Every structure is written in structure tokens, then in C-alpha cells.
């Protein structure tokens, strides 16, 4: 099976303070085909980040399994790039050296990796900023570096953990539009975790709504809105408001 397959995935934590077992994620099954853009949506604390961390290989599942293109996931690896809410750029590296990092770790020769990195820096609109350090950039620009750093490494799957939650509202809209443009151009497979209903509907082909803790799949909603997606156009598009209302209803009743 190509793409990402999640089967009966559960994560149960042992809380050392209360002495109880707490289920964060329960019996989640999910399939994402190559080139798909799927958003995982749920209220805060529903275990969506736990789910992403298991797919990334940062934490082991308690039960169930995760397969990427048929291979079982057993730890972090360059086949799954992660874009973090906190950006997690390396402050001691310039924009170019951040984007080059994955290629360098995998032994790509210097000239080639610089060329590839510059290509992706241009793709995210940061030409001319190659030699800046992250702290010299705005939050939105830093996250552009975060996206370029992952894309340059050409992962099979791009995992995004509320990547635009810590930038201002206008920048967020721009970044969302840019992300759909980049997805349209390169077709990376994306698993995007968010608690923002409109963001999920705007970006994805499919929105997977999770229940509150423990997170289970409540419903999967296909999004067949036209692309390229631009906020001014989409807000007027037939079907957008109805879709947002429907997904919002699912999230809120799930949280009740």
C-alpha cells in the first residue's frame, strides 16, 4: 500500500502524579494517499499532536502500527519532515544553512545541496535572505524557512503541527495561500494538524475530525473546493460556508 497507513493506533500515558493511565489517542485508523493534503482537526488536548508525534516517530505507540509506503515506522527519519509550531530553526545557522541541513546530513555534495536549497528558498519567497540568521527574520519568514527546510529534503510525507498558530492573522492567511500554491506545484503529501476549522477547510482535500480526549476519528469530511485557493475568492465560493459550518458542528458537538 502506497502512502501513509495508520492502523488501530492508541497511545496510553501513565500519569505519575495521579497514578492513572490516560488514553491520549484511541483506536485511530487513517489512510493518506501519496500527494494528498489531509488536515487533522480537533479541540485542544484531543491528542492530535500526540498522533503526529507518533507518525513522526518521536514517541512510540502503545498499540497499533503506522506504515509509510509499506515500511513500519520505528523512529524519526528523513522520509518524514516536520514543520513545528515553534519553528525549531537552528539559531546558529543562516537561512541557507538551515535549509541545507537535511541534504548535508544525507551526504549530498556541497554544490548540489546549495543549489537545491536556493531553489526552495526561492519557492517560499525568501530570495535575498539566504545569509540572514533566524532571529533577524519575522515569525512568518521563519516559518517559511521551516517549510523550505523540510521540502528541500524531499520527504515522502510532510508533517505540520499547527505551523501557523504563532504568527499574526494577516501573515497566517498569506502563509496558508502560499502553502496551497506550493502543494499545487510540488504535490507533497501533507498531514496538517490544527484546531482552526477554517484553516483546515481552506487547506485540505480531506478534514479528519477527532473527538476530545481520548482522540478518535469522529468523521472524515472531503473538501472539494476549487484550487488555487485564495481567501477572497474562497469566502465567496459556493459551498465554503456550508462546509465550515458542518465541520464546526462536528468539532463542537464532539467537544460538548
Amino acid at each position, binding site marked *: 500500500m502506497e502512502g501513509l497507513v495508520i492502523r488501530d493506533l492508541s497511545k496510553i500515558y501513565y500519569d505519575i502524579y495521579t497514578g492513572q493511565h490516560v488514553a491520549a489517542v484511541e483506536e485511530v485508523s487513517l489512510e493518506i494517499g501519496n500527494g494528498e493534503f489531509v488536515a487533522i482537526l480537533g479541540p485542544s488536548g484531543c491528542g492530535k499532536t500526540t498522533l503526529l508525534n507518533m507518525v513522526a516517530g518521536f514517541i512510540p505507540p502503545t498499540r497499533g502500527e503506522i506504515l509509510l509506503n509499506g515500511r513500519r515506522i520505528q523512529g*524519526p527519519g*528523513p522520509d518524514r519532515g516536520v514543520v513545528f509550531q515553534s519553528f525549531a*530553526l*537552528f539559531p*546558529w545557522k543562516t537561512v541557507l544553512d538551515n535549509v541545507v541541513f537535511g541534504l548535508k546530513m544525507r551526504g549530498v555534495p556541497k554544490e548540489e545541496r546549495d543549489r537545491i536549497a536556493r531553489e526552495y528558498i526561492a519557492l517560499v519567497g525568501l530570495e535575498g535572505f539566504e545569509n540572514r*540568521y533566524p*532571529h533577524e527574520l519575522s515569525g512568518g519568514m521563519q516559518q517559511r524557512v521551516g517549510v523550505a527546510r523540510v521540502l528541500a529534503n524531499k520527504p515522502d510525507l510532510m508533517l505540520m503541527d499547527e505551523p501557523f498558530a504563532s504568527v499574526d492573522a494577516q501573515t497566517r492567511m498569506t502563509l496558508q495561500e502560499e502553502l496551497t500554491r506550493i502543494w499545487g506545484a510540488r504535490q507533497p503529501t501533507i498531514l496538517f494538524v490544527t484546531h482552526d476549522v477554517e484553516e483546515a477547510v481552506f487547506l485540505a482535500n480531506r478534514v479528519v475530525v477527532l473527538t476530545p480526549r481520548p482522540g478518535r476519528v469522529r468523521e472524515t469530511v472531503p473538501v472539494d473546493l476549487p484550487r488555487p485557493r485564495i481567501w477572497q475568492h474562497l469566502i465567496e465560493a459556493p459551498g465554503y460556508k456550508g462546509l465550515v459550518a458542518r465541520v464546526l458542528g462536528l468539532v463542537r458537538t464532539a467537544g460538548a
Partner: protein
Amino acid sequence: MRRRILLPLRSFFMQPAVQGLGPFVLLVIVWALVVELEVYPRAFFPGPLDVLRAFGSLVYKGILPTYLQDSVTRLAVGAGVGMLVGVPLGLLIGLHPASYRFFWPLIIFFQAIGDIAWLPILLIWFGFTLTTMTFVIVYTVIFPMIFNAALGVRTVPVEMIRAAQSLGASPWRILVEVLIPGALPNIITGLRNGLGYGWRALIAAEIIVGTSGIGFMMFDARRSGSVVEMILGMIVLGILWYVVDAGVLRPAERATIERWGLVRQVP
């Protein structure tokens, strides 16, 4: 006409190097005034000019340069060895729980035995030698290095390590590319503290071991009752530390942790 004289004068005083001297100029003026007023007998409390004369004479005789070189070499060797052992050990116990459990009690135990407390037994084992001095300095320098390096690697955000892992970095590359640069603000703090303590330990060791060095010069001056040389020694210590700070530590900070935005820049 007045402006043409005042402006260059003003720009002269606005230079950082000159501004750094400002407080000391004031201090020397107050010092000279107290001496001129003859509040204390001159032999006990000599003035700036007396000290300057002693400086000239000791430089001329070659004593001061030799002693200075001895002291600085001892500090450099001690700090170098201390750093080469302390930083890796700190990284190890900061990253490896089993190493932490093994080394931590030992480190706490030996930290309590201060540098000077080692001197009696060191003098029996190694005598009045460079080995004794080096041991004392390494011993002093190493603890702040260990503690700060260990703290430093633990302050690196877990997401930064995870980012490196999912970009394909091996544990070794994560150490070199992420953990050590991330720990650098603390490592530099450790270096600063370590050198500061080491410098003091060196002077104490030179006073007791007593063969050469600035500490020896000051203590030796006691025999001839030469307060001038004691004050000169104190001034040399202060200036030397200022030079190490301005010439080594500050440039290192500016080129790394300030450039990377890990700490705010000093205005």
C-alpha cells in the same frame, strides 16, 4: 572657534575605549588626592606615581614580564586542560542519565574539597612544581565547566533535536550541529566563571608554592615591606582580567551567541 576645539575633543571622549577608561581615571584621581593630603603615611599608602615608578623599575629588571608570563601560562594551561576535560564531561552527564547517576555524587563530593585544601597533599606529592599549580587551577576551573555544559545541553529545546532527527541527522551530528552550539551560552558562562575562579586560585597557589608569578611577587614584597609592589600586583591582576575579558571572552560572545540572537546584545 570654541566649537572647533570642542567637537574633536567630544568625539575623542565618545570612543568606547576611552569611555571604558573613564571610571578608572576618576579612581586614580581620588587615589592621588588621598595620598597628597597625607591622610596615611606614604610608606603604607603610596601614590599612583610611586606605583608607576615601581612598574618601570620591575619591567626594566625583567622581573615583572617574567612573572606575568609565568602566571598567564599557568592559567592558560590550567584553563585549557580544565576545558578539555570539563566540557565533554558536562555534555556527557547532561545527556546520558547513567553517566549522570555515576558522576554526579563524585562531582559534588570533590567540589566540596576546595582547591586550596588540596595544596598540602599536592606539595608532598609533587613539591613546588608546575604540576601542583596546574592541578589546583584545573581543579578550580573544571567544576563551573561541568555544571554549565551539563545545564547547557539540557536547555536545548526538544523540538530542535527532533527537527534534526527528522532531517536525517545521526546522534553524533546532532551533538555537533545542535547540542553543542545550543549549549554554547552556558559553556561560555562556565568558561567565564572558571577562568575567574582559576585566576584567584592561581594567585593563592603562587603565594603558597612561591617560586614565581604575580602572586609570589606580591607575597614576597611583604618581606621588604614594599607596599608599592603589592599595589602594583593588584593593579596588574585587575588589568589582566580586563584584557582577558575584552580580548577573549567578549569577542567570542559577540561572534557567537550575540550574533545568533541567543542572548541580547550589550548596548
